[in-house]
């Protein structure tokens, strides 16, 4: 049960982080550079999961992804079943829940990018993709790493949203935090200890790697 939950958690966090990066990179770039009147609204929407109780977000997502929800019906139309209590539903829920933890570090990094260096690169003949890879990305590397780690770790650590949207189906939606809850409920404290200590160690190692990487870079 535990191995299955760990594998599912890593799979969920990896897919969520990758998809979040695909969405968040252009969104954060736009937020860092726009003067459009809608910017504060978009920023507020992105940040909602930080302040909203996870159960509230989970409840609305359950409604949205369920049989009567818009996304649930859309999924039913294409796949024959809704998204509630499925791995796909968990991915969508995790993406929304972890969105601010990926967008905000990226936006802060994009804010600090020296726009003149981008213009200089254009004038030296470089097109946008080369400019992003050779000029922008090196300047946002720390923010990018922070976004990856925070997005991944926050997905690993989620509980309320996952429970509401995914329930507790082993192999399908039972992630580590839910498995831990079940172990405590069934008074299997020894296993619960191992799992908790494992999560604690995982979190520490990830953070150590991030801080270590940042320190190496700041030396130059």
């Amino acid at each position, binding site marked *: 049960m535990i191995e299955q939950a760990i594998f599912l958690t890593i799979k969920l966090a990896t897919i969520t982080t990758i998809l979040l990066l695909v969405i968040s990179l252009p969104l954060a770039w736009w937020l860092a550079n726009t003067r459009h009147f809608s910017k504060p609204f978009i920023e507020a929407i992105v940040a909602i999961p930080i302040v909203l109780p996870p159960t509230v977000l989970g409840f609305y997502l359950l409604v949205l992804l369920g049989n009567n929800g818009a996304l649930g019906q859309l999924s039913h139309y294409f796949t024959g079943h809704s998204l509630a209590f499925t791995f796909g539903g968990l991915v969508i829920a995790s993406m929304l829940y972890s969105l601010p933890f990926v967008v905000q570090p990226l936006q802060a990094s994009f804010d600090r990018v020296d726009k003149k260096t981008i213009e*200089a*690169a*254009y*004038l*030296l003949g470089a*097109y946008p993709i080369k400019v992003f890879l050779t000029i922008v990305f090196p300047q946002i590397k720390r923010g990018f790493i922070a976004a990856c780690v925070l997005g991944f770790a926050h997905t690993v650590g989620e509980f309320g949203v996952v429970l509401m949207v995914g329930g507790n189906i082993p192999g399908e939606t039972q992630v580590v935090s839910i498995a831990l809850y079940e172990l405590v409920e069934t008074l299997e404290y020894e296993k619960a200890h191992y799992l908790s200590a494992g999560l604690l160690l995982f979190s520490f190692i990830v953070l150590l790697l991030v801080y270590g990487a940042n320190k190496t870079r700041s030396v130059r």
Partner: protein
Amino acid sequence: MFSTEITYKHADFEMDVGITLEPGKIHALIGESGSGKSTLLRLLSGLLTPTEGLINSGDRILFDSVKGINLVPQKRNVGLVFQDYALFDHMTIFQNIAYGVSVSNQHYVVQDWLEKMGLSNKADLYPEQLSGGEKQRVALARVLAASPDILLMDEPFSALNTQLRLQLRRDLRQLIRDSGVPVLIAIHDLEEAQMLADQVTILSKGKVVQTGEVQNVFAAPNSVASAHALGWHNVLKCEMLPFRLYERQMKKPAYMVIPATAFTLSEGIADLKATVLDSVSLQFTTYYDVRTESGDILQLELSKDSPRLIIAEQYHFKVNESQLMFIN
């Protein structure tokens, strides 16, 4: 030959600029802060789009509002040296200079520019490890290594000390002569503009108020705006001054530009009576701010040998008519 005739709706005013640049010549763009100098450089390089007009670089059309041509910056082959250099801090000096050079002859071209700029031993360093003057050289080398058809520079010496400016000014003139590239430099230091440039254009609120050879423009401003942009403080309506000073002019001029050095203290007949407002003493001269009887504020420069003037006292001055400039 690079020529442009464009308009652009600036936040504060409507820009309307026509400029022609000649190969191997340095053209200075001067004007007060906010007159549109940097905006013009951005318009020419393609970082901003003009409202209307035409930009030609030799036979190539970079922008033509009538034909709907607007080349992206990447295709213009226009080099721009930014005021703060905009070096790529995460790249070595070699990589910075190589950025705009095609891979096939990159090594040779970059080595050549490193040598020309005296940076051969700095190739593997990063920009943060260089002095201000060295950064400036890297920025210039990076742009010139890409073989631009025209070079634009935005206040290139503003962050450098006097000694470095002298050296770089000399080097730049030589480089431009050798390369034959037309150069447009936005510059606020008038003395520097005179020493560096062959031609000059004065911008005021986005419009060209005067253009021509440097010596001609500086010696004969054609308007009050031009005189102010050239740093002449004392621009007075002629009727405020005695007829004697402009009687030799064919036609009565509207304004008179009086250099600060044209005044001498007079005991007897005076061209001007003025009250001293303030004074600043330097090693060999003293500058005075004075108010004339008509209310104009003038700046005077008297040698240290002249008697010291007392603030709030009124004095009589004579004006040396050989130094005067007239605006019709």
